[in-house]
Protein backbone atom coordinates (compact mmCIF):
# COMPACT_ATOMS: atom_id res chain seq x y z
CA UNK A 1 0.00 0.00 0.00
CA UNK A 2 1.40 3.37 -1.03
CA UNK A 3 -0.55 6.42 0.01
CA UNK A 4 0.28 9.95 -1.05
CA UNK A 5 -1.51 12.72 0.87
CA UNK A 6 -1.66 16.30 -0.37
CA UNK A 7 1.95 16.35 -1.49
CA UNK A 8 3.43 19.51 -3.00
CA UNK A 9 6.88 20.09 -4.46
CA UNK A 10 8.42 23.05 -6.28
CA UNK A 11 11.71 23.64 -8.02
CA UNK A 12 12.43 27.33 -7.67
CA UNK A 13 9.36 29.17 -8.93
CA UNK A 14 7.93 26.19 -10.74
CA UNK A 15 5.43 24.13 -8.78
CA UNK A 16 5.64 20.62 -10.24
CA UNK A 17 3.33 18.84 -7.80
CA UNK A 18 0.38 20.64 -6.26
CA UNK A 19 -1.57 18.93 -3.48
CA UNK A 20 -1.41 15.48 -5.01
CA UNK A 21 -3.39 12.73 -3.30
CA UNK A 22 -3.35 9.17 -4.59
CA UNK A 23 -3.25 5.60 -3.39
CA UNK A 24 -1.86 2.38 -4.77
CA UNK A 25 -3.40 -0.81 -3.40
CA UNK A 26 -1.31 -3.94 -2.75
CA UNK A 27 -0.77 -5.93 -5.92
CA UNK A 28 -2.11 -3.16 -8.11
CA UNK A 29 -0.35 -1.83 -11.20
CA UNK A 30 -0.79 1.91 -11.61
CA UNK A 31 0.43 3.99 -14.53
CA UNK A 32 1.16 7.65 -13.90
CA UNK A 33 0.93 9.42 -17.24
CA UNK A 34 1.68 12.96 -18.31
CA UNK A 35 3.77 15.10 -20.61
CA UNK A 36 7.52 15.37 -20.07
CA UNK A 37 8.54 17.56 -17.15
CA UNK A 38 5.29 17.49 -15.15
CA UNK A 39 6.95 15.99 -12.09
CA UNK A 40 6.22 12.32 -12.62
CA UNK A 41 9.75 11.21 -11.85
CA UNK A 42 9.82 13.48 -8.81
CA UNK A 43 6.80 11.63 -7.46
CA UNK A 44 8.70 8.34 -7.58
CA UNK A 45 11.74 9.84 -5.88
CA UNK A 46 9.53 11.22 -3.12
CA UNK A 47 8.17 7.73 -2.49
CA UNK A 48 11.63 6.34 -1.67
CA UNK A 49 12.90 9.42 0.11
CA UNK A 50 15.49 10.48 -2.50
CA UNK A 51 13.72 13.83 -2.41
CA UNK A 52 11.57 15.47 0.25
CA UNK A 53 8.14 17.06 -0.30
CA UNK A 54 7.49 20.63 0.87
CA UNK A 55 4.17 19.68 2.37
CA UNK A 56 2.07 16.55 2.66
CA UNK A 57 2.94 13.01 3.63
CA UNK A 58 3.73 9.76 1.90
CA UNK A 59 3.31 6.37 3.54
CA UNK A 60 4.75 3.19 2.10
CA UNK A 61 3.64 -0.07 3.73
CA UNK A 62 2.35 1.91 6.69
CA UNK A 63 5.66 3.69 7.28
CA UNK A 64 6.05 7.41 6.83
CA UNK A 65 8.68 8.40 4.28
CA UNK A 66 11.00 10.88 5.94
CA UNK A 67 14.40 11.63 4.44
CA UNK A 68 15.67 12.66 7.89
CA UNK A 69 14.75 9.40 9.60
CA UNK A 70 17.31 7.01 8.22
CA UNK A 71 16.04 3.94 10.08
CA UNK A 72 12.50 3.85 8.71
CA UNK A 73 13.85 5.00 5.37
CA UNK A 74 16.11 1.95 5.27
CA UNK A 75 13.11 -0.25 6.10
CA UNK A 76 11.06 1.33 3.32
CA UNK A 77 13.87 1.07 0.79
CA UNK A 78 14.30 -2.59 1.67
CA UNK A 79 10.79 -3.17 0.37
CA UNK A 80 11.14 -1.03 -2.76
CA UNK A 81 12.92 -1.29 -6.05
CA UNK A 82 13.25 1.70 -8.36
CA UNK A 83 14.25 1.39 -11.99
CA UNK A 84 15.76 4.72 -13.05
CA UNK A 85 15.01 6.39 -16.35
CA UNK A 86 18.65 6.12 -17.35
CA UNK A 87 20.25 2.80 -16.47
CA UNK A 88 22.41 4.16 -13.59
CA UNK A 89 24.63 1.07 -13.68
CA UNK A 90 27.89 1.24 -11.74
CA UNK A 91 30.49 1.87 -14.42
CA UNK A 92 33.42 0.49 -12.49
CA UNK A 93 32.14 -3.05 -11.99
CA UNK A 94 30.88 -5.84 -14.26
CA UNK A 95 27.26 -6.65 -15.07
CA UNK A 96 27.39 -9.58 -12.65
CA UNK A 97 28.61 -7.32 -9.84
CA UNK A 98 25.90 -4.82 -10.70
CA UNK A 99 23.09 -7.33 -10.48
CA UNK A 100 24.41 -9.01 -7.36
CA UNK A 101 25.14 -5.67 -5.66
CA UNK A 102 21.78 -5.38 -3.94
CA UNK A 103 21.75 -9.04 -2.88
CA UNK A 104 25.05 -8.53 -1.10
CA UNK A 105 24.27 -5.07 0.29
CA UNK A 106 20.93 -6.16 1.76
CA UNK A 107 22.40 -9.47 2.87
CA UNK A 108 19.62 -11.41 1.20
CA UNK A 109 22.11 -14.14 0.57
CA UNK A 110 25.81 -14.63 1.29
CA UNK A 111 26.27 -17.98 -0.38
CA UNK A 112 28.16 -17.38 -3.68
CA UNK A 113 26.47 -20.16 -5.61
CA UNK A 114 23.06 -19.00 -4.41
CA UNK A 115 23.85 -15.43 -5.47
CA UNK A 116 24.97 -16.64 -8.88
CA UNK A 117 21.78 -18.65 -9.32
CA UNK A 118 19.68 -15.62 -8.46
CA UNK A 119 21.62 -13.41 -10.87
CA UNK A 120 21.18 -15.88 -13.73
CA UNK A 121 17.48 -16.25 -12.97
CA UNK A 122 16.84 -12.49 -13.09
CA UNK A 123 18.94 -12.17 -16.22
CA UNK A 124 16.81 -14.70 -18.06
CA UNK A 125 13.71 -12.97 -16.70
CA UNK A 126 14.65 -9.78 -18.58
CA UNK A 127 15.55 -11.83 -21.65
CA UNK A 128 19.32 -11.41 -21.66
CA UNK A 129 22.04 -13.84 -22.60
CA UNK A 130 24.49 -14.97 -19.92
CA UNK A 131 27.36 -13.72 -22.05
CA UNK A 132 26.80 -10.17 -20.80
CA UNK A 133 27.59 -11.11 -17.18
CA UNK A 134 31.34 -10.55 -17.54
CA UNK A 135 31.02 -7.35 -19.54
CA UNK A 136 31.13 -3.79 -18.27
CA UNK A 137 28.12 -1.47 -18.61
CA UNK A 138 29.81 0.85 -21.10
CA UNK A 139 30.31 -2.06 -23.52
CA UNK A 140 26.55 -2.62 -23.80
CA UNK A 141 23.88 -0.89 -25.84
CA UNK A 142 21.46 1.44 -24.11
CA UNK A 143 18.56 -0.99 -24.29
CA UNK A 144 20.67 -3.83 -22.87
CA UNK A 145 21.91 -1.57 -20.09
CA UNK A 146 18.34 -0.78 -19.23
CA UNK A 147 17.42 -4.45 -19.03
CA UNK A 148 20.42 -5.08 -16.78
CA UNK A 149 19.22 -2.26 -14.58
CA UNK A 150 15.78 -3.89 -14.35
CA UNK A 151 17.39 -7.23 -13.49
CA UNK A 152 19.39 -5.48 -10.78
CA UNK A 153 16.21 -4.08 -9.25
CA UNK A 154 14.39 -7.42 -9.50
CA UNK A 155 17.32 -9.21 -7.85
CA UNK A 156 16.44 -7.75 -4.46
CA UNK A 157 12.89 -9.11 -4.82
CA UNK A 158 11.03 -5.97 -3.82
CA UNK A 159 7.36 -5.82 -2.72
CA UNK A 160 7.03 -2.47 -4.41
CA UNK A 161 8.36 -1.88 -7.90
CA UNK A 162 8.70 1.64 -9.21
CA UNK A 163 9.55 2.22 -12.86
CA UNK A 164 10.66 5.58 -14.24
CA UNK A 165 9.98 5.66 -17.99
CA UNK A 166 10.85 1.96 -18.44
CA UNK A 167 10.26 1.85 -22.19
CA UNK A 168 11.97 5.09 -23.23
CA UNK A 169 14.88 4.34 -25.54
CA UNK A 170 13.92 0.68 -25.99
CA UNK A 171 13.00 -0.94 -29.27
CA UNK A 172 9.37 -2.09 -29.83
CA UNK A 173 10.16 -5.78 -29.27
CA UNK A 174 11.93 -5.12 -26.00
CA UNK A 175 9.04 -2.87 -24.99
CA UNK A 176 6.51 -5.66 -25.49
CA UNK A 177 8.71 -8.04 -23.53
CA UNK A 178 9.00 -5.56 -20.70
CA UNK A 179 5.24 -5.01 -20.64
CA UNK A 180 4.71 -8.75 -20.27
CA UNK A 181 7.24 -8.85 -17.48
CA UNK A 182 5.59 -6.04 -15.54
CA UNK A 183 2.20 -7.67 -15.96
CA UNK A 184 3.53 -11.04 -14.85
CA UNK A 185 5.21 -9.60 -11.76
CA UNK A 186 2.11 -7.75 -10.65
CA UNK A 187 -0.31 -10.59 -11.37
CA UNK A 188 1.67 -13.64 -10.28
CA UNK A 189 3.91 -12.31 -7.54
CA UNK A 190 1.43 -9.66 -6.36
CA UNK A 191 4.11 -6.97 -6.60
CA UNK A 192 2.70 -3.49 -6.18
CA UNK A 193 3.81 -1.56 -9.24
CA UNK A 194 3.92 2.13 -10.09
CA UNK A 195 5.01 2.99 -13.61
CA UNK A 196 5.74 6.55 -14.61
CA UNK A 197 5.53 6.88 -18.36
CA UNK A 198 4.27 8.79 -21.34
CA UNK A 199 3.81 5.58 -23.26
CA UNK A 200 0.04 5.31 -23.47
CA UNK A 201 0.12 2.01 -25.34
CA UNK A 202 2.00 0.26 -22.53
CA UNK A 203 -0.41 1.77 -20.04
CA UNK A 204 -3.38 0.22 -21.83
CA UNK A 205 -1.62 -3.10 -22.20
CA UNK A 206 -0.49 -3.47 -18.61
CA UNK A 207 -2.05 -0.99 -16.21
CA UNK A 208 -4.88 -1.73 -13.81
CA UNK A 209 -5.45 1.94 -13.30
CA UNK A 210 -4.20 5.20 -14.74
CA UNK A 211 -3.46 8.55 -13.24
CA UNK A 212 -3.03 11.53 -15.53
CA UNK A 213 -0.93 14.45 -14.27
CA UNK A 214 -1.12 17.93 -15.74
CA UNK A 215 0.27 21.20 -14.34
CA UNK A 216 0.96 19.62 -10.97
CA UNK A 217 -2.49 18.17 -10.52
CA UNK A 218 -4.33 14.93 -11.15
CA UNK A 219 -6.72 15.54 -14.05
CA UNK A 220 -7.89 11.97 -14.46
CA UNK A 221 -7.87 8.80 -12.37
CA UNK A 222 -9.46 5.46 -13.26
CA UNK A 223 -9.42 2.35 -15.40
CA UNK A 224 -8.46 2.09 -19.05
CA UNK A 225 -12.12 1.83 -20.05
CA UNK A 226 -12.98 5.01 -18.22
CA UNK A 227 -9.96 6.71 -19.77
CA UNK A 228 -11.26 6.14 -23.28
CA UNK A 229 -14.42 8.08 -22.50
CA UNK A 230 -12.81 10.76 -20.34
CA UNK A 231 -13.50 14.34 -21.32
CA UNK A 232 -10.45 15.94 -19.69
CA UNK A 233 -8.62 17.85 -22.41
CA UNK A 234 -5.24 16.19 -21.84
CA UNK A 235 -6.92 12.77 -21.75
CA UNK A 236 -8.39 13.62 -25.16
CA UNK A 237 -4.96 14.47 -26.51
CA UNK A 238 -3.63 11.17 -25.25
CA UNK A 239 -6.63 9.34 -26.76
CA UNK A 240 -5.87 10.87 -30.14
CA UNK A 241 -2.31 9.69 -29.79
CA UNK A 242 -3.60 6.20 -29.19
CA UNK A 243 -6.35 5.66 -31.72
Amino acid at each position, binding site marked *: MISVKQVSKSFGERRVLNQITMQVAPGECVFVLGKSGVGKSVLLKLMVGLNSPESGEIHVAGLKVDAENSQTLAQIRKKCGLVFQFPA*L*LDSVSVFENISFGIRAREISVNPSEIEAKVREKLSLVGLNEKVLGKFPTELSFSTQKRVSIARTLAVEPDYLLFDEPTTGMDPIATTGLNHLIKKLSQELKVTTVVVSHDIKSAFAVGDRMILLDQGQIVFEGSAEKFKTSTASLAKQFQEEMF
Partner: protein
Amino acid sequence: MEYILNLTKTLGGMILLAEKWIKLTFQGKTRWGFVIDQIFQVGVKSLGMTLIAGMFVGAIMALQIDVQLKDFGAESFLGGLSTSTTLRNVGPVLIAFLLSGKVGAYTSAELGTMEVTEQLNAIRLLGADPVEYIILPRIWAVIISSFLLLIVGLMVTILGGVLFSQFIGVNALSYIQNIPRIVTGWSIVLSVVKSFVFGTLIAIVSCYKGYTARGGAVGVGTAVQSCAVTNLILIIFTDFFLSMISSLLQELFQVGYL
Protein backbone atom coordinates in the same frame (compact mmCIF):
# COMPACT_ATOMS: atom_id res chain seq x y z
CA MET B 1 27.08 37.69 0.83
CA GLU B 2 26.17 34.69 -1.26
CA TYR B 3 29.87 34.05 -1.68
CA ILE B 4 30.37 33.81 2.08
CA LEU B 5 27.28 31.62 2.53
CA ASN B 6 28.53 29.24 -0.14
CA LEU B 7 31.96 29.13 1.45
CA THR B 8 30.45 28.29 4.84
CA LYS B 9 28.31 25.61 3.29
CA THR B 10 31.25 24.04 1.47
CA LEU B 11 33.49 24.08 4.54
CA GLY B 12 30.73 22.65 6.72
CA GLY B 13 29.97 19.92 4.22
CA MET B 14 33.61 18.98 3.96
CA ILE B 15 33.99 18.79 7.74
CA LEU B 16 30.93 16.51 7.94
CA LEU B 17 32.38 14.32 5.21
CA ALA B 18 35.72 14.19 7.04
CA GLU B 19 33.90 13.21 10.24
CA LYS B 20 32.15 10.38 8.46
CA TRP B 21 35.41 9.31 6.84
CA ILE B 22 37.18 9.04 10.22
CA LYS B 23 34.22 7.30 11.85
CA LEU B 24 33.83 4.71 9.10
CA THR B 25 37.57 4.08 9.03
CA PHE B 26 37.63 3.37 12.76
CA GLN B 27 34.69 1.03 12.31
CA GLY B 28 36.90 -0.92 9.93
CA LYS B 29 34.67 -0.39 6.91
CA THR B 30 37.45 0.40 4.44
CA ARG B 31 37.84 -2.12 1.61
CA TRP B 32 41.61 -2.04 1.37
CA GLY B 33 41.76 -4.22 -1.73
CA PHE B 34 39.79 -1.62 -3.62
CA VAL B 35 41.93 1.16 -2.15
CA ILE B 36 45.07 -0.48 -3.52
CA ASP B 37 43.39 -0.87 -6.91
CA GLN B 38 42.53 2.82 -6.94
CA ILE B 39 46.03 3.83 -5.83
CA PHE B 40 47.45 2.04 -8.83
CA GLN B 41 44.87 3.53 -11.14
CA VAL B 42 45.28 7.11 -9.91
CA GLY B 43 48.92 6.97 -8.87
CA VAL B 44 50.44 5.32 -11.90
CA LYS B 45 48.50 7.63 -14.22
CA SER B 46 49.85 10.69 -12.45
CA LEU B 47 53.43 9.54 -12.02
CA GLY B 48 54.74 10.84 -15.34
CA MET B 49 53.25 14.25 -14.80
CA THR B 50 54.64 14.43 -11.27
CA LEU B 51 58.13 13.56 -12.50
CA ILE B 52 58.06 16.24 -15.20
CA ALA B 53 56.66 18.84 -12.82
CA GLY B 54 59.22 17.96 -10.14
CA MET B 55 62.13 18.27 -12.57
CA PHE B 56 61.02 21.64 -13.83
CA VAL B 57 60.16 23.08 -10.42
CA GLY B 58 63.58 22.06 -9.15
CA ALA B 59 65.28 23.58 -12.19
CA ILE B 60 63.28 26.82 -12.01
CA MET B 61 64.13 27.32 -8.35
CA ALA B 62 67.82 26.52 -8.87
CA LEU B 63 67.99 28.98 -11.74
CA GLN B 64 66.08 31.76 -10.04
CA ILE B 65 67.82 31.45 -6.68
CA ASP B 66 71.17 31.40 -8.49
CA VAL B 67 70.38 34.64 -10.31
CA GLN B 68 69.14 36.26 -7.11
CA LEU B 69 72.04 35.09 -4.97
CA LYS B 70 74.46 36.58 -7.51
CA ASP B 71 72.68 39.93 -7.04
CA PHE B 72 73.26 39.67 -3.32
CA GLY B 73 76.71 38.14 -3.62
CA ALA B 74 75.95 34.93 -1.77
CA GLU B 75 76.07 32.30 -4.50
CA SER B 76 77.99 29.85 -2.32
CA PHE B 77 74.73 28.97 -0.63
CA LEU B 78 72.96 28.03 -3.88
CA GLY B 79 72.52 24.27 -3.41
CA GLY B 80 71.24 24.43 0.12
CA LEU B 81 69.06 27.47 -0.28
CA SER B 82 67.30 26.45 -3.45
CA THR B 83 66.77 22.90 -2.21
CA SER B 84 65.50 24.09 1.14
CA THR B 85 63.09 26.65 -0.34
CA THR B 86 61.81 24.08 -2.80
CA LEU B 87 61.35 21.34 -0.20
CA ARG B 88 59.72 23.52 2.43
CA ASN B 89 57.40 25.64 0.30
CA VAL B 90 57.47 26.05 -3.38
CA GLY B 91 57.77 22.34 -4.13
CA PRO B 92 54.88 21.04 -2.04
CA VAL B 93 52.64 23.92 -3.13
CA LEU B 94 53.31 23.70 -6.87
CA ILE B 95 53.25 19.90 -7.04
CA ALA B 96 50.09 19.81 -4.91
CA PHE B 97 48.55 22.32 -7.34
CA LEU B 98 49.23 19.92 -10.22
CA LEU B 99 48.01 16.91 -8.26
CA SER B 100 44.83 18.71 -7.33
CA GLY B 101 44.35 19.17 -11.05
CA LYS B 102 45.17 15.58 -11.90
CA VAL B 103 44.10 13.40 -8.97
CA GLY B 104 41.54 15.79 -7.51
CA ALA B 105 39.83 16.74 -10.73
CA TYR B 106 39.83 13.10 -11.88
CA THR B 107 38.16 11.98 -8.65
CA SER B 108 35.61 14.78 -8.62
CA ALA B 109 34.78 14.17 -12.29
CA GLU B 110 34.34 10.45 -11.67
CA LEU B 111 32.16 10.91 -8.58
CA GLY B 112 30.26 13.76 -10.22
CA THR B 113 29.47 11.53 -13.18
CA MET B 114 28.27 8.82 -10.81
CA GLU B 115 26.03 11.32 -9.05
CA VAL B 116 24.44 12.88 -12.14
CA THR B 117 23.83 9.49 -13.78
CA GLU B 118 22.08 8.40 -10.57
CA GLN B 119 24.57 5.64 -9.84
CA LEU B 120 24.87 6.91 -6.28
CA ASN B 121 21.07 6.95 -5.91
CA ALA B 122 20.95 3.39 -7.22
CA ILE B 123 23.45 2.35 -4.53
CA ARG B 124 21.33 4.04 -1.88
CA LEU B 125 18.20 2.26 -3.02
CA LEU B 126 19.90 -1.11 -3.23
CA GLY B 127 20.63 -0.75 0.46
CA ALA B 128 24.27 0.34 0.60
CA ASP B 129 25.76 3.62 1.79
CA PRO B 130 27.49 5.40 -1.10
CA VAL B 131 29.85 7.15 1.32
CA GLU B 132 30.97 3.81 2.68
CA TYR B 133 31.00 1.97 -0.62
CA ILE B 134 32.32 4.57 -3.06
CA ILE B 135 33.74 7.57 -1.19
CA LEU B 136 35.63 5.94 1.70
CA PRO B 137 38.02 3.86 -0.41
CA ARG B 138 38.54 6.81 -2.76
CA ILE B 139 39.45 9.17 0.05
CA TRP B 140 42.10 6.76 1.28
CA ALA B 141 43.36 6.08 -2.22
CA VAL B 142 43.71 9.78 -3.00
CA ILE B 143 45.40 10.54 0.33
CA ILE B 144 47.92 7.75 -0.04
CA SER B 145 48.66 8.28 -3.71
CA SER B 146 48.92 12.08 -3.40
CA PHE B 147 51.22 11.70 -0.43
CA LEU B 148 53.47 9.24 -2.23
CA LEU B 149 53.45 11.31 -5.42
CA LEU B 150 54.33 14.45 -3.50
CA ILE B 151 57.25 12.71 -1.83
CA VAL B 152 58.47 11.36 -5.17
CA GLY B 153 57.95 14.78 -6.76
CA LEU B 154 59.96 16.49 -4.03
CA MET B 155 62.83 14.04 -4.46
CA VAL B 156 62.79 14.73 -8.17
CA THR B 157 62.96 18.49 -7.55
CA ILE B 158 66.30 17.90 -5.82
CA LEU B 159 67.46 15.94 -8.85
CA GLY B 160 66.17 18.68 -11.14
CA GLY B 161 68.11 21.26 -9.20
CA VAL B 162 71.32 19.24 -9.30
CA LEU B 163 71.07 18.52 -13.03
CA PHE B 164 70.25 22.08 -13.90
CA SER B 165 72.97 23.54 -11.70
CA GLN B 166 75.47 21.50 -13.70
CA PHE B 167 73.94 22.92 -16.87
CA ILE B 168 74.35 26.56 -15.77
CA GLY B 169 77.92 25.93 -14.80
CA VAL B 170 77.70 25.44 -11.05
CA ASN B 171 79.70 22.45 -9.89
CA ALA B 172 77.16 19.74 -9.15
CA LEU B 173 79.32 18.30 -6.42
CA SER B 174 79.55 21.52 -4.46
CA TYR B 175 75.81 22.01 -5.03
CA ILE B 176 75.10 18.64 -3.48
CA GLN B 177 77.57 19.15 -0.63
CA ASN B 178 75.83 22.40 0.18
CA ILE B 179 72.41 20.75 0.56
CA PRO B 180 72.81 19.12 4.00
CA ARG B 181 74.31 22.34 5.40
CA ILE B 182 70.99 24.15 5.05
CA VAL B 183 68.31 21.49 4.67
CA THR B 184 67.68 20.46 8.27
CA GLY B 185 65.84 17.42 9.55
CA TRP B 186 63.17 19.79 10.72
CA SER B 187 62.68 21.05 7.15
CA ILE B 188 62.27 17.51 5.89
CA VAL B 189 59.71 16.78 8.61
CA LEU B 190 57.87 19.96 7.66
CA SER B 191 57.74 19.05 3.98
CA VAL B 192 56.54 15.52 4.78
CA VAL B 193 53.83 16.90 7.06
CA LYS B 194 52.81 19.37 4.36
CA SER B 195 52.65 16.60 1.78
CA PHE B 196 50.36 14.54 3.99
CA VAL B 197 48.08 17.47 4.84
CA PHE B 198 47.83 18.53 1.18
CA GLY B 199 47.01 14.96 0.18
CA THR B 200 44.23 14.83 2.76
CA LEU B 201 42.88 18.19 1.61
CA ILE B 202 42.83 17.13 -2.03
CA ALA B 203 41.02 13.90 -1.09
CA ILE B 204 38.31 15.53 1.02
CA VAL B 205 37.71 18.46 -1.32
CA SER B 206 37.50 16.43 -4.50
CA CYS B 207 35.30 13.71 -3.00
CA TYR B 208 33.00 16.35 -1.52
CA LYS B 209 32.76 18.31 -4.76
CA GLY B 210 32.09 15.21 -6.83
CA TYR B 211 29.58 13.86 -4.34
CA THR B 212 27.60 17.10 -4.37
CA ALA B 213 27.63 17.60 -8.17
CA ARG B 214 24.20 18.21 -9.66
CA GLY B 215 22.71 18.64 -13.10
CA GLY B 216 24.07 16.66 -16.02
CA ALA B 217 27.26 17.25 -17.98
CA VAL B 218 27.33 20.93 -16.96
CA GLY B 219 27.18 19.89 -13.31
CA VAL B 220 30.19 17.64 -13.71
CA GLY B 221 32.18 20.46 -15.33
CA THR B 222 31.23 22.85 -12.54
CA ALA B 223 32.22 20.28 -9.92
CA VAL B 224 35.65 19.83 -11.48
CA GLN B 225 36.22 23.56 -11.68
CA SER B 226 35.13 24.37 -8.17
CA CYS B 227 37.08 21.40 -6.87
CA ALA B 228 40.26 22.73 -8.45
CA VAL B 229 39.72 26.26 -7.14
CA THR B 230 38.83 25.17 -3.59
CA ASN B 231 41.85 22.88 -3.51
CA LEU B 232 44.24 25.63 -4.55
CA ILE B 233 42.95 28.16 -2.04
CA LEU B 234 43.00 25.66 0.82
CA ILE B 235 46.50 24.51 -0.13
CA ILE B 236 47.80 28.08 0.01
CA PHE B 237 46.05 28.70 3.34
CA THR B 238 47.28 25.58 5.05
CA ASP B 239 50.75 26.07 3.63
CA PHE B 240 50.93 29.41 5.36
CA PHE B 241 49.51 28.09 8.62
CA LEU B 242 51.83 25.11 8.69
CA SER B 243 54.83 27.36 8.04
CA MET B 244 53.64 29.66 10.80
CA ILE B 245 53.20 26.81 13.28
CA SER B 246 56.65 25.54 12.36
CA SER B 247 58.22 28.96 12.93
CA LEU B 248 56.40 29.35 16.26
CA LEU B 249 57.64 25.95 17.38
CA GLN B 250 61.14 26.90 16.33
CA GLU B 251 61.04 30.09 18.34
CA LEU B 252 59.56 28.39 21.38
CA PHE B 253 61.85 25.39 21.49
CA GLN B 254 64.85 26.67 19.52
CA VAL B 255 64.72 23.70 17.15
CA GLY B 256 65.32 23.47 13.46
CA TYR B 257 68.57 25.44 13.20
CA LEU B 258 70.54 22.23 12.68
